[in-house]
């Protein structure tokens, strides 16, 4: 049975096509102003790679902030699921020992405790504050004049711990500028940034409880500086699966196989 999952996020759209439990293809595009177009582009790219057409997909499930849009043509998803449910299904599939899944996307952060079947036992979401999401790192990278993908490796170079006072992205920008003026090395500032974000995500995760194995997914999981900071913050090992940003879409494709 061929299924597909689409995760229409704030910054990127991810599409995954599966045949049973075998992944046929993956595609990612930037979420543009026209969300439908972006979703269509991601799906079409995934179809092309898999060498199939839309009618070959028996069941399609949408997730992500823009999932409602995917219920309409041209995507015409059969149903939608919340990100937390998709994350749980996807994380347990890629790492069966997952009991806590943390998803840090561009504009939201989520944490869920899950059972061995990938069902959600409890969860917590931050969708109101940019400081607990990828947007925070992006804004700080801009202030630091560093590419966002370089932030993680840069932070790893530092051995110092500089506390950041600001909890708000807007205030933190000014604080980073002050640190630059004070000639603080860039790697130390980068570490202060990932540390402060880890502290925020950590306090969110603690609200739901930490049970091993802890799996980190979402775009921010690709920031190795943040991963190390979160390990320190939670005092636990953290598993980052390959292609962590696709786990939500993967979960949606798996849920599609149930045809519920």
């Amino acid at each position: 049975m061929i299924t597909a999952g689409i995760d229409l996020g704030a910054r990127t759209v991810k599409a995954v096509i599966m045949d049973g439990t075998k992944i046929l293809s993956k595609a990612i595009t930037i979420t543009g102003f026209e969300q439908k177009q972006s979703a269509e582009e991601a799906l079409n790219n995934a179809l092309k790679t898999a060498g199939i057409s839309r009618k070959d997909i028996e069941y399609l499930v949408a997730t992500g902030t823009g999932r409602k849009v995917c219920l309409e043509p041209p995507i015409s998803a059969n149903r939608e699921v919340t990100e937390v449910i998709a994350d749980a299904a996807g994380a347990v599939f890629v790492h069966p020992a997952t009991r806590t899944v943390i998803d840090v996307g561009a504009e939201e952060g989520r944490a869920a405790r899950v059972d061995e079947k990938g069902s959600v036992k409890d969860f917590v979401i931050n969708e109101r504050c940019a400081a607990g999401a990828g947007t925070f790192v992006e804004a700080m990278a801009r202030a630091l004049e560093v590419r966002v993908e370089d932030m993680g490796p840069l932070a790893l170079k530092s051995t110092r711990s500089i506390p950041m006072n600001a909890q708000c992205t807007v205030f933190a920008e000014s604080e980073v500028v002050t640190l630059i003026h004070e000639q603080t090395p860039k790697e130390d500032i980068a570490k202060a940034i990932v540390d402060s974000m880890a502290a925020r995500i950590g306090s969110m995760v603690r609200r739901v409880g930490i049970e091993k194995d802890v799996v980190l997914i979402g775009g921010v999981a690709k920031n190795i500086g943040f991963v190390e900071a979160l390990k320190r913050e939670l005092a636990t090992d953290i598993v980052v699966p390959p292609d962590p940003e696709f786990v939500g879409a993967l979960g949606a494709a798996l849920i599609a196989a149930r045809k519920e």
Partner: protein
Amino acid sequence: MSEERKEFWRWPEYRWVNPDIDWTKGKVITAGVDVGSVSSKAAILVDGELYAYDYMRTGASSKDSAIKAMTWLLEAIEPKMKLEDIHYIVGTGYGRVNVPFAKRAITEIACHARGANFLWGPTVRTILDVGGQDVKAIRCDEKGKVISFLMNDKCAAGTGRGMEVFADLLGVPIQDIGHLSLQVKEEPPPVSNTCVVFARNEASALLRQGWPKEQVAAAYHLAMAMRMVELLERLGVEKDLVVTGGQSKNIGIVKRVARLLNIEPLPNPTKPGYDPVAAGAIGAALFAKALYEREKGVK
């Protein structure tokens, strides 16, 4: 290639000296320096009367900002006044402990209440102070003594910085954005995101959809006013209400707060130099006077 980028968010700096006072004839000269997270203010009193004040952007260092605000003000005074001519200086604001020449540091909450009492008189009971990186609701008695307060200094939503972000986005000078926000026939729904970063994204999308600038400005002003009113209502509002800090000069905010609360704040004082932005510095200078007199045993 360099391109000059206009800083729409930046408030103009200014200073004022009372031409009717000869400070050399004064007995007690005191000053207050309010080093805020965004702006620094200095005020000088001669025998308890407002003599001079200024307003500047805070730099990277609180200490340097305090020195600059004081130096720039002293430079405007004729005949020349030196720092040593001032009998007592109190520091206040976010950077109050870093004011090198201050004998004491007092919280900006106490200073704003004291300053508001001076600027508007003893009928003031509630103060809404909208600073660069915080927003406070303060209740005080007829002497300007603080009874209770609530503050948000964790999040840019509802603060002056949030408004600066929008001035920048809309390309409208910060001192004009309030007027612009009132140029709408009908009030649009408020910007729905609380977070300034997300609100900015939301506003960009509205602009792309073809919303005129004034409508986007109105939507953000309304959202911001709603947050302020929420804070005020949690504290409880007693008349008279006044607004201090940068947003006291934003008619778009003041009008909306008045409408939502159904309480008209007292208009800004018309007496020269009585600037609600300097309320904290003036309050600090008043505390300085009281402290000096207590020290000297003057009644």
